[in-house]
């Protein structure tokens, strides 16, 4: 159990001399609290697995330091780091039984037999593996094998952190949901720091209390699911989180007014000192724009289709060339294929070169 600090950590698979722009992980500094449940969220190739492998020591960083409770462990090998990691595909030891698989990490570290037995029994119970303990691990289904991998990750009580690298990829959707809730419960019971890598926002948002969003080798935002939803720090976060994602439109912003497609939208805050020469965009989530009948004074858009998601309906629209999504209020039916849009001014954000600008109130 430990606090993990990353100090100016960066990695390039091309070696130190590589172009900084090509780094798989651009320099980052951040702190992971003891006992936190973190998700590392981002699309494939964004550097999240690299970051995970740096923490576990499978990959040695090109630059920077990793501290566990203030102690620099960067030069230590994986086996000396006291880290547990669960991989995307099940890793099991073919010749061993389920119980021996679970006991393996403890046995290798010379834990007394009695303690191993209690710990294995405990973890097996949590993961519903108790009836299979005496069976050969090779004979089980992929789901069960991945549960063994998870179990081996969780069996050591003293680890600095448990790292999960998209561990539920091979699991059926229904069981996936169960296992995720189980992991969440385990996190509460075992008081372990957990870092969960995924490209699935639902997985990240339901598992973690802090979600770290990565894009192109950088951490673009780290915050609670609500923060990511309400106030994306980067247009990528807005777009990547939420379904449909945030609408991002090029705009001219002056004071408390944004002009989109020649039409003025009121803003809650005042934006006077925008960086000169930057690409200015406004972002607003579809949940905070309502579709209504076209009327003078409203930004109008052409309707392409309506997606009925059951609880809520979203209209897919087009403003000029830009795609746009907005909420269709309950009971509202659209006359014709042109609609007016009503913006919730407090939810409209301004971005300069993709980064959130805080307006003055």
């Amino acid at each position, binding site marked *: 159990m430990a606090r993990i600090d990353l100090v100016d950590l960066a990695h390039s698979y091309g070696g130190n001399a590589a172009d900084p722009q090509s780094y798989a992980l651009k320099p980052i500094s951040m702190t992971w609290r003891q006992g936190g449940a973190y998700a590392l969220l981002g699309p494939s190739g964004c550097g999240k697995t690299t970051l995970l492998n740096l923490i576990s020591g*499978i990959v040695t960083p090109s630059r920077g330091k990793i501290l566990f409770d203030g102690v620099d462990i960067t030069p230590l*090998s994986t*086996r000396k780091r006291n880290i547990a990691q669960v991989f995307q*595909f099940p*890793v099991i*030891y*073919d*010749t061993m039984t389920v119980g021996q698989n679970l006991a393996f990490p403890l046995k*290798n570290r010379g834990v007394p037999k009695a303690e191993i037995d209690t710990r294995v029994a405990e973890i097996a119970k949590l993961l519903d593996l108790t009836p299979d303990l005496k069976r050969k691990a090779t004979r089980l289904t992929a789901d069960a094998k991945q549960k063994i991998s998870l179990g081996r990750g969780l069996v050591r009580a003293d680890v600095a952190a448990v790292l999960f690298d998209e561990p539920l990829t091979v699991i059926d959707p229904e069981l996936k949901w169960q296992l995720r809730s189980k992991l969440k419960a385990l996190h509460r019971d075992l008081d372990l720091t957990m870092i969960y890598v995924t490209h699935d926002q639902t997985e990240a948002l339901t598992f973690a209390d802090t979600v770290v969003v990565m894009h192109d080798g950088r951490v673009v935002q780290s915050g609670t699911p609500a923060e990511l939803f309400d106030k994306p720090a980067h247009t990528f976060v807005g777009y990547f989180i939420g379904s449909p994602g945030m609408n991002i439109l090029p705009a001219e912003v002056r004071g408390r007014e944004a002009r989109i497609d020649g039409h003025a939208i009121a803003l809650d805050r005042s934006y006077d000192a925008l960086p000169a020469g930057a690409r200015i965009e406004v972002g607003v989530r579809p949940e905070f724009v309502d579709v209504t009948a076209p009327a003078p004074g409203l930004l109008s858009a052409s309707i392409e289709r309506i997606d009925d998601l059951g609880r809520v309906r979203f209209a897919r629209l087009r403003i000029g060339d830009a795609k746009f999504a907005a909420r269709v209020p309950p009971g509202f039916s659209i006359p014709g294929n042109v609609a007016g849009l009503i913006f919730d001014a407090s939810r409209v954000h301004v971005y300069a070169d993709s980064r959130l600008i805080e307006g003055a109130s």
Partner: protein
Amino acid sequence: MKKTLNNRAWLLVAPVMIVVLFSALLPVMTVVNYSVQDAMAENHFFWNGDAWFRDLLDPSTEIGARFSGALERNLIFSFVVLLIEVPLGIALSLALPRRGWAVGPSLVLIALPMLIPWNVVGTMWQIFARADIGLFGAALNDLGLNYNDTQDPVSAWFTILLIDVWHWTPLVILLSYAGLRAIPDAFYQAAQIDAASRWSVFLKIELPKLQRVLVLAILLRFMQSFMIYTEPFVVTGGGPGNATTFLSIDLVKIALGQVDLGSAAAMSLVYYLITITLCYIFFTAMTQLDLLKEE
């Protein structure tokens, strides 16, 4: 249950059947034919029943003694070959580079001996091992060892074994290397996370994952070594005495040297049956091992 009968499928199988008939079945039947007949004068054959087989399998007869002696040498030879080549092949495959520029050149270098035809291998070694002028043989003698592969049975066996190890360990290395490469990195990473020692990585990950390719390697090496012919034929001529007279060498002596067709035919059939029976036992044992362990 209703089944549609359609005999046209025979037409599709027919070409293969005809080829197999001429390439395998007819020659084998000729051998079977010889094995139950005896010849008087020129091509005057008469029925001889199972006499050839009875003689062959009875060690008190001259032919029976030759057969059991050669069979024993064959079994010892194959056993020693497997005992050396399989562990050596695995060990060397573990030592090969996994990635980088060195992979290609080392694989090619290792595969080279396998590309050399048997009789060339034999001739090379015949000269190489000569006690008077051969680089290898003369060097051993200069070191004070009493080495002579045509006069001393121990030297002869040592030479034949060395040739086979040199010639065919590469096969085991390549098969085992392919098996190792098929193990995903995550297994090694997980082993590091679990603090497994190098030895337990080998025992718990690599060896179980290699099981399939090793079955193949052992079968191939057994079959080939059990059929050994060219190397002793060229290098030692089956001697000194009959120290390196293996079944195949003796078979050729009986069939072509003594033109004793009945004995030779019986011997080759028994030889053939022993080979496939042993292969079957090996294969079954190795593939069923897991299932037996389970229960």
